[in-house]
Each structure stands twice: as C-alpha cells, then as structure tokens.
C-alpha cells in the first residue's frame, strides 16, 4: 500500500482551484503554498506554448528532506507519508534547499485576517518560523473524501489512490499513459506521477533518458 497521485497535464487548465482548496482545507498562512500551479512557457515567438504544472509534495519513498533534517521533525508516518512535526522543527531551512521539487515553505508569520482566522484550530497548529508542506490531506485519508486538491479539480486532472496496486486507477493511468516522475536522477522515487500532455510524450521520454544519463 502506497498512496500516490497522478496529475494529467493534458487536463490542467491552470485555474488554481487546487491551490485555493488546499489553502482552505489546511489553513496555511500567507506565503505558504502546499499546493500550487506553475506556469511554463515553451518555444520562441511566434511559436509559443504555455502550459501549467500543478505541484505539491511528491511524498518520496526515499526523501531528501528526511536525510538533511537533524531534528527528526520530518518523518514518515505509519501511512508512509512524509510529515513534519512543526513542534520539533527549528527552521534551519536545510530541507527547503534539499527538496528538488520546491515543495516546502517557511512560515514567516502573518495572517489573512486581522481578527484571527475563522478556522481556529488548524491555523493554530501552524507554527511561525517552521517549515511545512503538503500531507496528502492525511487527516482525510480513510474518512472518505479525497485530498482537497483532487476533489476541487474541475477538470478531473488529479487522481489519488494506491500506486502499489496494479489494478488501481492510478497505476493503470501511469502504465497506459506514459506516467513519469520529475527528477528521476535523484533516486528519491516520488509518489506523484505526471501524465505528459499530448504531443510531448517523446519530450518526456527524452527528459527521463537525459536525467538517467546525468545520474550516471
């Protein structure tokens, strides 16, 4: 059993619904994004293309962030998810630098609401000066709903499930549609796979090959 996500780059329209849904669900403070959408421009005028890449914590099997954390604030929970115990984090920022996916943010304080957040409880659990990141909405796992970004995606670009199960939807998608991971050269084995947009499947094959070359 290993939780994972598949993001279909063909379907993402860059609407940021996932970013907002994540902010609402997890009440992250200003400047902290557990889920975000990046824009990429490819090509040269007049032959240009803009594409969107949603990103979140890749929940690596062998995470670089755990290796550099000297406080044991970053750990793997019983579900196999990479989690941060904010009460143990000293804010040295080594993990932010070590993560090749830019999944982590430093909570530099601040509040969206002058009178305190209406969420109360969750907001209080974010400690100023510590590092945080996506948890795959682990508080929802087993309780029915999917992670908030998956539920919020209006185009159905995100799929959540067990990537170890060969019969699961996510595994079938990875197998059938050339699912790939970013930065395979770091050997971190991320649990988030991307389905390449139409027409760039060859590009993805080259990306993977090039990364493997770099690794060697």
């Amino acid at each position: 059993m290993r939780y994972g996500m598949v993001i279909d780059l063909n379907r993402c329209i860059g609407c940021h619904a996932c970013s907002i849904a994540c902010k609402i669900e997890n009440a992250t403070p200003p400047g902290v994004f557990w889920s975000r959408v990046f824009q990429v421009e490819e090509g040269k005028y007049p032959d240009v293309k803009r594409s969107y890449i949603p990103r979140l914590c890749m929940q690596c099997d062998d995470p670089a962030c755990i290796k550099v954390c000297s406080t044991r604030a970053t750990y793997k929970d019983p579900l196999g998810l990479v989690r941060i115990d904010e009460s143990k984090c000293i804010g040295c920022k080594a993990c932010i630098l070590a993560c090749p996916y830019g999944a982590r943010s430093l909570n530099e304080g601040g509040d969206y609401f002058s009178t305190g957040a209406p969420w109360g409880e969750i907001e209080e659990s974010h400690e100023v000066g510590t590092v945080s990141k996506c948890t795959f909405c682990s508080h929802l796992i087993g309780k029915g709903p999917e992670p908030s970004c998956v539920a919020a995606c209006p185009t159905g670009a995100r799929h959540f499930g067990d990537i170890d199960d060969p019969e699961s939807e996510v595994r079938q998608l990875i197998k059938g549609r050339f699912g790939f991971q970013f930065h395979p050269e770091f050997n971190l084995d991320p649990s988030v796979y991307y389905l390449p947009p139409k027409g760039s499947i060859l590009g993805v094959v080259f990306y993977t090959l090039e990364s493997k070359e770099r690794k060697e």
Partner: protein
Amino acid sequence: MEVQVERQQYWRWKIAFYLFLAGTGAGAYIVAILADIFYPEATYLSKAGVLLGIGLVILGIPFLILDLGRKGRFLRAGVTIKTAWIGRGFYILSIFTILGVIHIGFWIWPFKFLETGNSFRLTLEIVNGLLAFSTAVYTGLLLKSIKSIHFWNTPLIVILFFISALSTGTICLLLTSIKYLLQIRGGRSVLSFLLSADLLLIFFESLVLVFYLSTMYGATEASEKSVSSLIKGDLKLLFWGGIIICGLIIPFALKVIEVSYPGIIGLVVVSSIFILIGGLLLRYGILAAGVQVIPLLPNCR
C-alpha cells in the same frame, strides 16, 4: 520539457558569516597547533591562535542560531547525526569549543601544571586539532550535502572552503600577533613566513576556484546558471570586485610591493584585511549563487 531554475533565498549573510567565522577559527587553531609542534619557541603564536580559533568559532555560533526560524529550539539541532550534517556540525562545534575552553584553562593558575611537558596536553591538542580540521571541512560538507543545488554538490567546495579556512585563519593569527612579533627577535621572519605561506594558500585557493567554476560551468544547467550569475550576472560585482580583486589580486600586489620595500607593516595589515573580506565574500557569493533544481518557476510568489 525545459527545466527552469531559481537561486536559493534561504541561506544568506548570516550563514555566510557563520561559515566564514567557523572556518577562520578552525584554520587559526590548526595553524596554532602546527606552530606549537614545529616551532615551540613561539608560545605566544600558538596561544594567540588557540584563543583566536576558539573565540572565532564561538563568535560564529550566534549567527547560525539567529538564522533559525525557531531560535529557542536550537539545541534540537543535535537530535540525530545519522545523515544530517547540521546535526554532525552541532557536535563537532560543541566538542571543539568545550575542548578548546579546557585547553585555554591550562594557562590559568591551578591547572598550569598540566601545561608543561605533558603528554596530556599534546593529546588534547591533537584531538582538538582534528576537530578543528573537521570544523573547517564541515563548512564545505554542509553545502555539499544539499544535492538539489548542483553548484554545491561537489567535493571541490569542501577543498575550496578548507584552503580558504586555513588562509583566513593564518591571516587572522598574523593580524593579532603582529605587534608582538615585531618586538621579539626573529619575529619579523616569522611574520614574513606566515604571509608567504598565506599567499601560497591563496594561490592554491585561486587554482581550486578556477577549477571549481570551470567544472561547474560545464556540469549541469543549474550549475552553469550559478557560475553565470557570479561571473556575468547580478553577482558579478561581488565576484570580480570582492572575491577576485579584493581577496586575491590586491593581497598579491601588496606582497610584491612589500618584497621590494620590506618593513612597511601597514602593507601587511592592509593586505590581511583584504584577504579576510575576500574570504567572507567567497562564502556569501557561493551561497547566493546556489541554484536549486526545481522543475519549474513559481508564478505565485
């Protein structure tokens, strides 16, 4: 799919000061131990070096703590040393500082008997010398362990920081003991030896720096961007003005003048100060140029 990159914004001046002070302190301590073993007449030199080395390392620690998001929890940095260099550094620096304070304690009255002709002192010196070596090397290993920044993830950075630590440590020791060395017999030759040794170190440092930058320029897209930002990007003033001219060229030029007109102590002092500034800016430049490999640029920052 193009891989876009951005420079890290998290480890800046405070970490640069910390790396510089820890490296310089460790360098000064190593030189002091070497002076004590090979040149025992110069007790002043070795004592000044020990005091200076420990002092600088202690001075550097607050910079690291100030950089933390939760300063009050800094003791947690030592929870695990399995793979984390921050944790390993925590112990290297702590033990080095504690042993150093014990070493300094030998000079104080009730413990003075431990100092003279005693194998205990020599053992302590060697053990702490190794810890000083570890401190200097650790400043490079800390950066090397960050694999997602290709510019740092190379053994060359460890060698570069180590040579720079020795060089700035020597020069710091020279600066603090210059007044004494001028008063004693043969002091002037010691001074000249230290300065020459330091310029030799700077020469090696320049070679390593050139090798490091040229290797990194050709290594990956991310490391090429790092080098470009130093030699022709927005860090070029700091690189050419601070690291190359201030830290390498001026000290050499002043040495040439000093050879022709010996005895101008002002020149030695000035070139030493330039070397120290160069050492600090080298740390900062390498930190600031660290490009993190992130697949894509954020548009929501």
